[in-house]
């Protein structure tokens, strides 16, 4: 009897020791994987920062610490074309975001709160438009922009960006509105409140965070757009940031201004990264809400 008890106790001890050992190995591997992923996602941006603060020959030596020489940044902020593109991009992205949020909120209220027979069809149509390849509408868009007299003007981009941002904001805001309990508005409906008042007085005050995260996503979408910005803007003074950076080049392969491009890259990405990190959780819920329930 005692013999059996002792034997089972030792096996238990041995098994728990091996369990602990394997757990530690597992934790070690997972920790290593976390480290690898972090280096993989963060190193390129870090390297852009490092490269943007080196000068001349330093740039071609692979030292891993920044040299903290801000000459490129200084020349960048004395460059009227780059500053102009920052202003243009901000104007285009802010206007597009504002218009998309207003249109999207109105449509999302109908799709999220009012029952009508064509609702599924409208949702499908919106989803289909949002996955449109932009090049497909390019010829018609060219004609439209000329007809509106907007060719080579930043406001042309606001018009064209609505193609992607309005369906996108509508889709996300619809899922957000559906998450609010309907009981919120029941009393108002019984009192005979109009839909417009329900949206403005009951839902809107609650939707600040949803609008913020949707707005940031729309802002990033328009800030990063390239194809329309390349096609509908002709002169340097009216370009947006991605095209300005995309077209930065030296007179030859060997004079390629990498330091300057890296400084510009760091500058235009920094606000996005800060915004995204601040609103991290909301952005993730905005991005995934539409996809999971769709």
């Amino acid at each position, binding site marked *: 009897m005692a013999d059996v008890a002792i034997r089972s106790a030792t096996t238990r001890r041995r098994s728990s020791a091996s369990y602990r050992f394997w757990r530690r190995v597992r*934790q070690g591997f997972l*920790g290593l994987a*976390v480290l690898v*992923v*972090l280096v993989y*996602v963060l190193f*390129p*941006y870090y*390297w852009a920062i490092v490269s943007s603060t080196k000068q001349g020959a330093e*740039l*071609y030596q*692979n030292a891993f610490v920044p040299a903290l020489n801000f000459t490129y940044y200084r020349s960048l902020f004395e460059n009227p074309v780059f500053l102009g593109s920052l202003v243009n991009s901000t104007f285009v992205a802010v206007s597009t975001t504002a218009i998309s949020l*207003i*249109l*999207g909120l*109105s*449509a999302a*209220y*109908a*799709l999220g709160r*009012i029952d*009508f027979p064509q609702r599924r069809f409208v949702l499908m*149509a919106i989803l289909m438009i949002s*996955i449109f390849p*932009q*090049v*497909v*509408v*390019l*010829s*018609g868009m*060219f*004609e439209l922009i000329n007809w509106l007299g907007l060719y080579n003007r930043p406001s042309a981009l606001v*018009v064209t960006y*609505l*193609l992607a941002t309005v369906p996108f904001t509508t889709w996300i805001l619809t899922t957000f509105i559906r998450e609010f309990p309907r009981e919120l508005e029941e009393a108002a409906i019984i009192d005979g409140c109009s839909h417009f008042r329900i949206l403005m007085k009951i839902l809107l005050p609650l939707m600040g965070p949803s609008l913020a995260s949707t707005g940031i996503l729309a802002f990033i979408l328009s*800030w*990063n757009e*390239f*194809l329309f910005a390349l*096609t509908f803007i002709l002169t340097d003074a009216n370009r947006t940031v*991605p095209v300005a*950076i995309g077209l930065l080049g030296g007179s030859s392969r060997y004079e390629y201004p*990498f330091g300057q491009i*890296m400084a510009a*890259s760091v500058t*235009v*990405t920094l606000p*996005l*990264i800060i*915004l*995204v*990190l601040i609103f*991290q959780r909301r952005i*993730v819920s905005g*991005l*995934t809400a539409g*996809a*999971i329930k*769709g």
Partner: protein
Amino acid sequence: MSTRLARREHRAAWLFLTPLALVMLLVAVWPLSRTVFFAFTNAYLDDPTNYSMVGIDNFIEVLTDSGWWHVVRNTLVFTSISVAIETVLGLAIALLINEAIPGRGLVRAAILVPWAIPVVVATKIWDWMLNDQFGVINALIVGLGLSDHGIAWTANSSLIMGVVIFIDVWMTTPFMVLLILAGLQLLPGEIFEAAHVDGIPAWKRFWSITLPLLTPAIGVAVLFRALDALRMFDLAYVLSASNENIMTVSIYARDRLISYQELGVGSAAASCVFLLVAFVAILIIGVLRLDRSAGAA
């Protein structure tokens, strides 16, 4: 009475949808129909009002152009390989973040960085890192003794497609991770506890429980990514605008339209892009449906 109320509700719904509908008519439906219309004309971009109808000549010109089939191949190769890698890598990173380990919050935040960086900027950064003479990647390769000279990543015609896929994987895997992670967090924990108690090994738990339950979430993510990859323009354009080894259907259509000013042929090419994307979308949705009905049976 109730039908009148219902009708009033329908009218209210359409009233709220009117602004959206008008804007979509203006920037989506109208330009799309004009593109299809121009595809049957011989118009040029410098004077779009001067044209005559030419039937399907433009489509014949596009479909008999070996350049077109070359860019179709590039696009399909790019889409299938990059989406496949992103799915596997995204699943792995999502499973990693889902584990209770120190640093998972940090990874979840850090993963948003490549996603937020503009495509143009990400392309420029990787182009610099992969520079054949001064790039940090080649310095590492030489430093580690893997090769005694740097590799011409972007100048080599057989490597450049790999570079494009590599950059795309870096940029868009975060999106996959977020979607798969959201799917993972919806899975019922009891099943895993039960399997754990029953002593089922980890790989089998993953293969027989996690993966089948996760399939719908992965399917949606793959659909979104594939349609996005099919229309890729900026990455290849910024890396090397005229390199035919990485030219995509979007670049081809835009070149015909803008650079050669061929409004008719360019519109026909754009219409073909539309058909290609629609075909792949139907294909993927069909596979997902089949899968779902098979799972339900």
